[in-house]
């Protein structure tokens, strides 16, 4: 490893612009003639639209136009779609209700867009939006998934009888029932996974610009995957053909899944730009983000975990109802199925697993992938029920886990996944040591003397990253392939541009991707530029989500680097009159191994472009591209241990220690990996302690701002003790697994296990707010 190569703790290249205020986010973009859009949104959770009167609004100062859904339909703009087909167990396809970017005759959640105002200033657009008169006939609403399935519940879509989208299963139901019937012990639980709002700090934004001269559209958007956005907007929404649409995702201020999807607003901004003849910019305010960004989680589950008399797990039975909100968002169907139920084996040998999943429509914001996407739900379920089992069986939770760990690889689970590598005991041992697990009893006693209830809880998670291979996910219903592309351009002066289909919105790709090149060619990372986020620059890519940019995105770069290296060596061998096989690359030069003959990297590059003296038949230039399609998922895993102190008088929980021991395989930049873990843990603690999205029964969002939705703040969190171990991933050339979501996946059950341990009441739902913990303590006193 060089100073800037693989494994080096390199400070980030991209930081310079962010710390000086020179970052360029969508809201920072200004195009000549640009005007501002404000959406008119439904105040009702469920209503028929009787009439929309825009006359008064159109006459307001500064207003250029007010557009409605009927006009959009008349122009042939398509409905939004869900791109992952799931079939119910009876073989029928999922029931997708129509979702128009601007509602035409019915609204199904508070905040759904019904019209858009374009005006000179945002203030004027807002003034006029209030003057748009929409006449609604209110309908009864339903917000809870369980209620939506009940007879007589309000019906959202004619396509989906009983609000049921699909009724899907995985695993062997008969084997599970048989194992449960003869089990020595069965732990049963009712588990709720709370609805969350992603809350990237940069609100979503879009700037649509139609160029009449070229009949060409440009869309600046807060996207994690601009190429997917272009594909979907072209192929399904009929905004423009791909060659007439450029999508740019510049600096993006966090995503966490919520910026994967193509939302109504960017479609409408593009369409409205052509309609009005001016570039149209929309920037969400925070309340709009709460109302309209895709939410996360929202599962209700009944689970049974069976054990034999030796405390070995014999079966897991899961019955889940998942709330997908009012419409099916782009990848929503995959989250409670292939991203969830396929991980239910966790780190354990469980011979029989069956999961049944029903997804339903409700009058709430659409739900889709949010940091972890399905895997946090699986981990929370399993790690809560395992911890509870240990309590019921009267054994140490760590030892119960250890006894059931998978120890030989590859391991084929009963739910599709085949784990390739791991050492779960190593993570458990590392975490227990870092947490001083053995010394806990003493700390609990010391806390008791101070009037505090101290508890400890753990969680041993596994996740699957870098969803792949494309053919496999295609057979499971995915509408896209999940490969990645890369192009490496060596310039004539030896500097290098790497074009990638991955998109960085905080992950530090400009640094880690450059480190790969530095490692390979011995050039400084400053001479490497990472180009991403623009469909005019990078041909095609699948973007960044599911912790895929390392395992998939960087593997594509490696493939392209291989090709560049091969050609560079040929050129060097020719220049040095040596055998190609004897050329090595060291410290920025191509050398003949064992001799002092060498040619500097930049001279080789210059030779490639002058083409005065190349091997016979070689094309000039030095530029190579590659597409990489993984052969398997990757399987990061680890052990998290949380220690809490609860104030019994107020129910307030302090996280006094949080330990994370992760196995991410090989690591490119440990500093960045640690940062990803810190952030993930904070989001997981947020879910467990603070964050809960709440609608009232009429469908009004009660937590629509930071006044009511609790974001984790610095004072809510401790510093984290993180470490990693390494079983390299065998399926990709770098041996890396991905680290972006682990923290959010592994931490919630550790927190709840710790609190329930502290208070002696296992009946506690997330978020464990002071009020809930206090109430649980009162209930425990009564029993």
């Amino acid at each position: 490893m060089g100073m800037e190569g693989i494994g080096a703790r390199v400070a980030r290249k991209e930081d310079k612009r962010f710390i000086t205020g020179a970052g360029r986010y969508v809201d920072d973009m200004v195009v000549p003639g640009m005007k501002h859009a404000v959406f008119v949104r439904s105040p009702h959770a469920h209503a028929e639209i009787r009439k929309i009167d825009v006359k008064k609004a159109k006459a307001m100062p500064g207003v250029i136009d007010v557009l409605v859904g009927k006009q959009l339909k008349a122009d042939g703009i398509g409905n939004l779609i869900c791109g992952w087909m799931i079939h119910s167990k009876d073989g029928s396809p999922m029931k997708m209700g129509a979702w128009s970017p601007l509602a035409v005759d019915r609204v199904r959640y508070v905040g759904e867009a019904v019209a858009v105002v374009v005006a000179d200033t945002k203030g004027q657009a807002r003034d006029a939006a209030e003057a748009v008169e929409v006449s609604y006939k209110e309908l009864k609403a339903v917000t809870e998934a369980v209620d939506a399935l009940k007879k007589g519940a309000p019906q959202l879509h004619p396509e989906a009888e009983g609000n049921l989208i699909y009724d899907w299963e995985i695993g062997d139901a008969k084997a599970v029932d048989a194992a449960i019937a003869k089990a020595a012990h069965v732990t049963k639980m009712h588990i709720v996974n709370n609805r969350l709002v992603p809350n990237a700090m940069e609100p979503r934004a879009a700037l649509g610009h139609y160029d009449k001269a070229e009949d060409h559209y440009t869309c600046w958007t807060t996207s994690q995957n601009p190429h997917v956005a272009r594909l979907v907007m072209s192929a399904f929404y009929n905004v423009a053909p791909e060659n007439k649409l450029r999508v740019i995702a510049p600096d993006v201020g966090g995503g966490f899944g919520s910026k994967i999807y193509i939302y109504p607003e960017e479609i409408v901004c593009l369409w409205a730009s052509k309609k009005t003849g001016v570039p149209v910019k929309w920037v969400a305010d925070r309340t709009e983000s709460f109302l309209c960004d895709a939410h996360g989680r929202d599962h209700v589950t009944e689970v049974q975990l069976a054990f034999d008399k030796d405390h070995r797990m014999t079966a897991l039975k899961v019955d889940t109802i998942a709330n997908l909100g009012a419409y099916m968002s782009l990848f929503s169907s995959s989250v409670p199925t292939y991203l969830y139920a396929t991980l239910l084996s966790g780190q354990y040998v469980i011979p029989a697993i069956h999961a049944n999943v029903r997804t339903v429509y409700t009058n709430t914001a659409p739900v889709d992938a949010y940091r972890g996407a399905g895997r946090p739900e699986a981990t929370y379920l399993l790690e809560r029920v395992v911890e509870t089992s240990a309590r019921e069986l009267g054994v140490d939770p760590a030892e119960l886990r250890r006894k059931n760990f998978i120890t030989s690889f590859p391991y084929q689970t009963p739910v599709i996944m085949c784990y390739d590598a791991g050492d779960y005991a190593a993570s458990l041992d590392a975490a227990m040591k870092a947490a001083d697990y053995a010394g806990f009893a003493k700390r609990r006693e010391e806390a008791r003397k101070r009037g505090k209830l101290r508890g400890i809880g753990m969680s041993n998670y596994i996740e699957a990253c870098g969803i792949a291979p494309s053919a496999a996910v295609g057979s499971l219903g995915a509408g896209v392939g999940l490969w990645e592309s890369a192009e490496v351009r060596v310039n004539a002066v030896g500097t290098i541009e790497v074009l990638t289909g991955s998109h960085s919105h905080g992950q530090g790709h400009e640094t880690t991707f450059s480190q790969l090149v530095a490692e390979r060619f011995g050039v400084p990372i400053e001479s490497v530029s990472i180009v991403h986020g623009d469909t005019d620059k990078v041909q095609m890519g699948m973007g960044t989500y599911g912790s895929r940019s390392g395992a998939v995105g960087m593997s594509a770069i490696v493939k392209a680097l291989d090709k560049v290296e091969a050609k560079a060596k040929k050129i060097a061998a020719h220049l040095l009159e040596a055998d190609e096989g004897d050329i090595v690359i060291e410290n920025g030069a191509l050398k003949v191994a064992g001799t002092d003959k060498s040619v500097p990297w930049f001279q080789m590059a210059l030779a490639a472009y002058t083409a005065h003296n190349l091997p016979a038949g070689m094309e000039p230039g030095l530029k190579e591209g590659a597409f990489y399609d993984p052969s398997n998922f990757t399987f990061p895993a680890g052990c998290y241990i949380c220690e809490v102190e609860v104030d019994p008088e107020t129910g307030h929980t302090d996280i006094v220690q949080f330990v994370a021991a992760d196995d991410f395989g090989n690591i490119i930049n440990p500093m960045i990996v640690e940062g990803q873990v810190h952030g993930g843990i904070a989001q997981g603690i947020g879910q467990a302690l603070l964050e809960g999205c709440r609608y009232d029964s009429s469908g009004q969002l009660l937590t629509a701002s930071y006044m009511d939705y609790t974001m984790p703040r610095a004072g809510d969190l401790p510093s984290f003790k993180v470490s990693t171990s390494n079983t390299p991933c065998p399926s990709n050339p770098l041996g890396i697994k991905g680290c972006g979501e682990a923290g959010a996946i592994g931490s919630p059950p550790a927190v709840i296990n710790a609190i329930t341990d502290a208070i002696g009441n296992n009946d506690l739902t997330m978020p464990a707010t002071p009020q809930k913990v206090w109430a649980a303590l009162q209930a425990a006193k009564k029993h």
Partner: protein
Amino acid sequence: MSEVTINVNGRTVTKTVEDRTLLVQFLREDLGLTGTHVGCDTSQCGACVVHVDGKAVKSCTMLAAQASGSSVVTIEGLADGAELHPVQAAFREHHGLQCGFCTPGMIMAAVDMINRHPEGLDEATVRAELEGNICRCTGYHNIVKAILAASAAMGKAGKGKAKAA
């Protein structure tokens, strides 16, 4: 409409703006200083923190007209030419940022915090004083580390009050 005169990052500017113009709008839209961000509507996230007359304030919760006659320092005015302010340097060194959106507000809040605590800072104080700044990426771990490091460095350099913007 009101005529507003503000010294921004050392330069006095006069503009006529709608009275309802917020200071953050004035900075971003009228002056093109887009380093100051807007992350919420309820004065909580702190992405918009700037210094007005030497004190950290939320520029989304102040009319530009209120700031007329005042001096404002934004993230763009913090570095001394090419030389980063010690807090900026510490954020980079300690990986105190990821997506960068909350970062300008965080840095301006941190500078203010360090200025108010010439005696030095500890972790608990830094965490408590970050109450008005929300970050979704870092879990605050490295932000706290960066602020503590910058505070120590500025203390050593006798710069506790150097850039009392």
